[in-house]
């Protein structure tokens, strides 16, 4: 092989490697991480969906995870450690109880978790944790859809992440070990009332966001004045009392049973509004006229 041929082969190889690198930039990947390979009946385990952005900054993710639920049962999902900080579509099971779908936002983008001891290489980030319990011996398989992602570039450029899959084996033994993240924490809650012409025709709505680092939020509920507690799923929530004269209580509960309550005071009632002043003046005038008429009649009678 002469020098020129070697040169050509070298450049072609360089080209091929380069193409792979460039292609990699636009191909983030998702993986399913299992906490255990084999569990017993009654034993809980979790599956983490991990996102490796491969250097790209990504700010939305949409997709689903399907699992065989013949031998296992779904307990709950946890998003306390998720890179997703706002859910557009909260994780929810379909009617067959074997597919969990969701769509979420990572504000300002996510391009990997920094390991301070090795900051040059970024780690994949958790999107969601699914907790299951083994029921009877067998094998359960898991698979994901192709995930739709959008780049954090101000234009919402769409890319995809290839699907992933995995299996868990449920052995022929009993183990009643339950999964529990033992960190004790209180939820954090942000809640306030607004009204905007673009939402429910400018009616009062509750805006809220609840977060719990350890296990995630179980539910958020609201109590308006003396009415009973109502679970609220999505922000914005249309308030029942549109007069805003009721005190509003918002409670966020985490999966460990710890809760935090936020109180939103009603709008203070001001008697001396322009309308009320006009009404008072009108009533005084009417009264004066009536008194004048009665006094006139009385005088005439005398």
């Amino acid at each position, binding site marked *: 092989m002469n020098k020129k041929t070697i040169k*050509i082969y070298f*450049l*072609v190889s*360089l*080209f091929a490697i*380069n*193409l792979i*690198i*460039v292609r990699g*930039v636009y191909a983030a990947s998702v993986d399913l991480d299992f906490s255990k390979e084999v569990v017993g009946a009654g034993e809980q385990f979790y599956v983490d969906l991990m996102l490796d952005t491969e250097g790209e*900054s990504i*700010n*939305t993710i*949409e997709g689903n995870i399907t699992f065989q639920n013949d031998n296992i049962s779904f307990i709950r999902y946890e998003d306390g*450690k998720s*890179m997703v*900080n*706002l859910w*557009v*579509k909260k994780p929810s099971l379909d009617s067959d109880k074997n597919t969990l779908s969701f769509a979420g*936002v*990572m*504000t*300002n*983008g*996510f391009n*990997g*978790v*920094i*390991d*301070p*001891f090795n*900051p040059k290489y970024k*780690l994949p*980030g*958790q999107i969601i944790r699914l907790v299951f319990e083994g029921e009877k011996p067998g094998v359960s398989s898991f698979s994901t859809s192709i995930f739709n992602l*959008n*780049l*954090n*570039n*101000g*234009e*919402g450029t*769409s890319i995809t992440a290839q699907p992933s899959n995995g299996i868990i084996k449920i052995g022929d033994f009993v183990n009643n070990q339950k999964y529990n993240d033992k*960190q004790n924490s209180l939820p*954090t809650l*942000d809640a306030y009332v*607004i009204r*905007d012409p*673009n*939402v*429910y025709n400018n009616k009062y*709505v509750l*805006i809220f*966001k609840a*977060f719990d*680092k350890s296990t995630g939020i179980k539910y958020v509920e609201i109590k308006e004045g003396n009415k009973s507690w109502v679970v609220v799923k*999505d*922000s*914005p929530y249309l308030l029942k009392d549109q007069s805003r004269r009721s005190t509003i209580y918002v409670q966020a509960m985490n999966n460990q049973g710890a809760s935090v309550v936020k109180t939103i005071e009603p709008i203070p009632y001001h008697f001396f509004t322009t309308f009320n002043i006009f009404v008072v003046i009108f009533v005084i005038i009417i009264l004066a006229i009536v008194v004048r008429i009665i006094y006139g009649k009385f005088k005439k009678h005398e």
Partner: protein
Amino acid sequence: MRKESYKKLLLLFILIIICFSQMVFADTIVSQTVTISARVVVDNGGGNTGGGGIDIPTTVNFSGWAYPYSTVYLLKDGFLEATVVADQSAYFTFSISDLVTDTYTFSIYTEDDNGRKSSLFSFPILINSGTAVNIDNIFLSPTIDTDKTEVKKGDLLKIFGQSIPLKEVLISINLGQDYVFSVVSDSLGKYLYNLDTSNLNLGRYKTKSKTIYNNKESLYAIPVSFLVGEDNINGGGDTCNTLPGDLNCDNHVNLTDFSIMAYWYNKFNPPETVDLNGDGTISLVDFSIMAFYWTE
């Protein structure tokens, strides 16, 4: 054509493709200057807790530059953790402790004298208990604004904001490709550039800025847009037309705007102001555009 010529053509083709693909790759590199270091904290035996366990402190220290005397905000997992005021030279430091082993998302931003926000510098990091982590050289973006939302073609448009004092600020204007103008901030960090719009075609433009300090570059400011048209319309009001995602016109892109957009998700006929990419529906693309301009 001879065989030799074919080979030369092939080589040329390969080189062009390589150069092109490298350009694409280079464009994705984020110019950031942050340095991160960590060390394991050795307990000297003096930190015993009441329960007999060993309490090894975990601290995360942040330092960097904002604007002179500006308030710097530190968010942990999206909620306010601490604030600090930068000194005269715009330098700031934070220190937080009592963290357990976990992944945390920290976000830092500042505000200029007129309440404009810098870009949010946000990053997830794995913190292990018993370590001291330093995150230094955080170089917050400048702010940027214009004196008009619409400028009459041929008139001057003032582009201004705040940054580190006495440093070079590069102002980019998107005209199909970026045109860059350089100014130097004053002792308060303020900068101003008078843009001659004579050479601009009628239409909408975006402008953004970044600061250069010791050959390091800050993040870009949150871009603002302006219209070159037939009238002058003064700015200084709300940012509905200049900050994408600010749906309720309060100069922020935050949870309220997200909730307004979420209300219209998968609904028919969303308002034009909510449909950020103008395709007649609210999809994840609209949320993605909003997430890019997020200010908290």
